[in-house]
């Protein structure tokens, strides 16, 4: 029984990596001349950044048994607020702080509403999806804000600052944040409580875990990550766009789920979510390279999401 269990755990942990290798190998064989180039790697990595950073916060939420549907809107709001701040202050650092902060604010609100009203996260964040999007449009006067992002622009540059860095600064930022978040999840009391709440909230309460406070912290954290993703979106597009990232929350949730996250809580990992984000970015990139129409790519990602979760369920149910 124990042997089975180990095998099962191994499968769950390695599954996303195997998927990544498969997808990678497929395109490496099909179009090596375009796919296997330094330039293309830099492209793919940079394309991954925004979804991956959004997925980091989402990983915490999903492990705790919650969901945040408002991250796409928060990203748009973050990009708009960063652009507006840039316009009024001209200071990129303040603009970054404002963009990240407004995401955090949305997260705090989500957390407080979920814990104090007793309304399920799905509904509260569905509401926030509308509120944040609307606020972004209001602030931007329903237009794209064409503001020079100053040094923010360089964050999402595809080329590395120094040659030895291989990839652009945004990609480095993504990896550093992922490591930091993974350490928090694994070695902090907050991480322990996140898993505990997702696994059995009643037990967490019984053990004196401050469940409400922890949830507010988690939604705020998710908001901060979304706000940062918004700033990066501004960096990438060079405009603060209130209509950007529509539906991106679903890509982000998909990345977490492909990476082994369970929407019923208690399962998920940062490395998995990161791999999930990469799988989706490589698919998008590879499909473009072999000139498949966009809809093929959409269908493929849909199939992969369901297949990943189904495989997970199947392995989980195997005798033991």
């Amino acid at each position: 029984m124990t042997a089975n269990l180990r095998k099962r755990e191994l499968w769950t942990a390695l599954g996303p990596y195997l998927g990544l290798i498969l997808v990678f190998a497929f395109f490496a064989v099909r179009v090596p001349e375009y796919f296997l180039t330094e330039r293309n790697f830099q492209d793919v990595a940079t394309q991954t950044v925004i979804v991956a950073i959004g997925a980091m916060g989402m990983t915490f939420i999903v492990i705790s048994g919650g969901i945040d549907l408002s991250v796409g809107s928060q990203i748009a709001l973050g990009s708009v607020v960063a652009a507006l701040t840039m316009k009024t202050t001209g200071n990129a650092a303040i603009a970054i702080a404002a963009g990240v902060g407004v995401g955090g604010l949305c997260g705090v609100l989500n957390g407080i509403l979920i814990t104090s009203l007793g309304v399920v996260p799905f509904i509260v964040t569905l509401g926030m999806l509308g509120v944040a999007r609307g606020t972004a449009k209001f602030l931007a006067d329903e237009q794209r804000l064409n503001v020079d992002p100053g040094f923010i622009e360089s964050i999402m540059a595809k080329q590395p600052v120094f040659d030895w860095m291989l990839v652009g600064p945004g990609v480095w930022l993504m990896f550093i944040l992922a490591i930091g978040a993974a350490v928090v999840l694994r070695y902090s009391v907050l991480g322990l409580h996140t898993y505990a709440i997702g696994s059995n909230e009643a037990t967490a309460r019984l053990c004196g875990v401050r469940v409400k406070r922890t949830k507010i912290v988690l939604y705020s954290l998710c908001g901060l990550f979304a706000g940062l993703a918004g700033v990066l979106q501004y960096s990438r597009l060079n405009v603060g766009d209130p209509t950007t990232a529509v539906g991106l929350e679903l890509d982000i949730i998909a990345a977490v789920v492909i990476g082994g996250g369970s929407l019923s809580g208690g399962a998920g990992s940062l490395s998995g979510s990161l791999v999930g984000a990469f799988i989706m970015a490589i698919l998008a990139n590879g499909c473009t390279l072999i000139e498949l129409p966009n809809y093929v790519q959409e269908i493929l990602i849909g199939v992969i999401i369901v297949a990943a979760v189904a495989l997970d369920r199947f392995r989980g149910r195997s005798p033991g």
Partner: protein
Amino acid sequence: MVEPLLCMTGIDKAFGSTHALIDVDLEVHAGEVLGLLGENGAGKSTLVKILAGVHGPDSGEMRLDGLPYRPNSPNDARRSGIAVIHQEPSLAPHLTVAENIVLGREDLRAGFFLRDQREMVRACLRRLHRQDIDPDQRVSGLGAAARQIVEVVRALAFDARVLVMDEPTSALGKQDVVQLFELVRRLRAENVGIIYISHFLEEVQQVADRYLVLRDGAAVGHGDAKDATIEDWIEQMSGRRIEDVYPDRSREPVGDVVLSVRELAGAHLPHRVEFDLRRGEIFGIAGLCGSGRTEFLRCLFGLDPVRRGEVKIGVTTDNGAAPRRRLQQGVGMLVEDRQVEGLALDRTLVENLSLSRPMARFGWLSWRAANTEAQGWIDRLGIRTTGPRQVVGDLSGGNQQKVAIARLLHHDVDILCLDEPTRGVDVGSKAEIYRLMVDLVSQGKSILIVSSYLPELLGVCHRIAVMRRGELSSARPTAEWDEQSLLASAVGGAS
């Protein structure tokens, strides 16, 4: 001799390196109750799962009504007339009684609920003399005993000929148990073969015709129930003579009052609770299920809201506080249902242990320290596990309970509120838990224990009070109680 209704011969089953069943024979005749006994992990559930088509045996054969019986799936077994009623009722609470009963039946045409099916449900209830249960009532409105009846009716609706009852009384109060036995006897009269599994040996003795004892996967004893004594059974189950399951507790508590409760009432139950708990004391609370015993502990620990009343712990007085506050005050609680509330089943042992008191500094965990600590408790309490990092859900019931207790000890609480601490726990582990309790109070801790199992209260407590309809009687020394008087007091007779 008449051919048995069900005959399992030479059943063998291994899971990896664990030999769960070794050459087990089991026979049940029509109209007979077979008591299936054994400690947790002795192989009872594996045997039942083989019978119910969940697992296939590695070797051995089964015959039902003289014909070879080889179920490929639980549905197969159900169609052949095998019904299993599990420890935890498996009814859909939002559906009505009748809907629950016909759920999963194949003659549910195009998903429509037919009139004759309701009639069939009525007929089944009549057969059991339980017309008082309304087929159109929602199951969520029924008590534990009535739910059990509904499960039995569901089994009958599938024309069950062999009925397996797995710990059917563990969620029932004494009065409901009487009703359940009435039902068992009626089923026996209808020629149903019944396999009755229970840790409550007294009950098995009352209800069973024959018995079969399993130990470590092998059948170690069988015979007529009326010829066996409970001591025999305990010896066969545990493989050792248990002179006295209950430890010596000659030391009477002399300490100060550490917890005092005045006029405590919960949102729903209890209505009024007053008592003092002394340092070094084991204080028992008896009473029927639904009398407010569990609710009282939950109010005290802050899991359920307090309507009014005062709780004084040490020198501080309050009108109810959250579990976190209670833990800080040195009060810990072991909840009744470790599966649903007590443990995070899909997390590891060390994680579960770390939840209430993580080995951490400035919010950062030291897993090394936590693992060492966990290993210490595994050794001290004799938890059978592969190590601190085993997932708790894979442990047996008794070992899960020890993990839950270890968490309280790791937190180093001074007052332990234990709700049914030995439910679903085998005799060997029970004895260990009792010894541990006595050990703890001799170190100056205090214990508040709620239990449906009267011999246990009489065996370990210094004082016992009885909860009846939400009111706690005044406490009396255990020596002034016996089972009859406790029961009389619980059901409201003169005492």
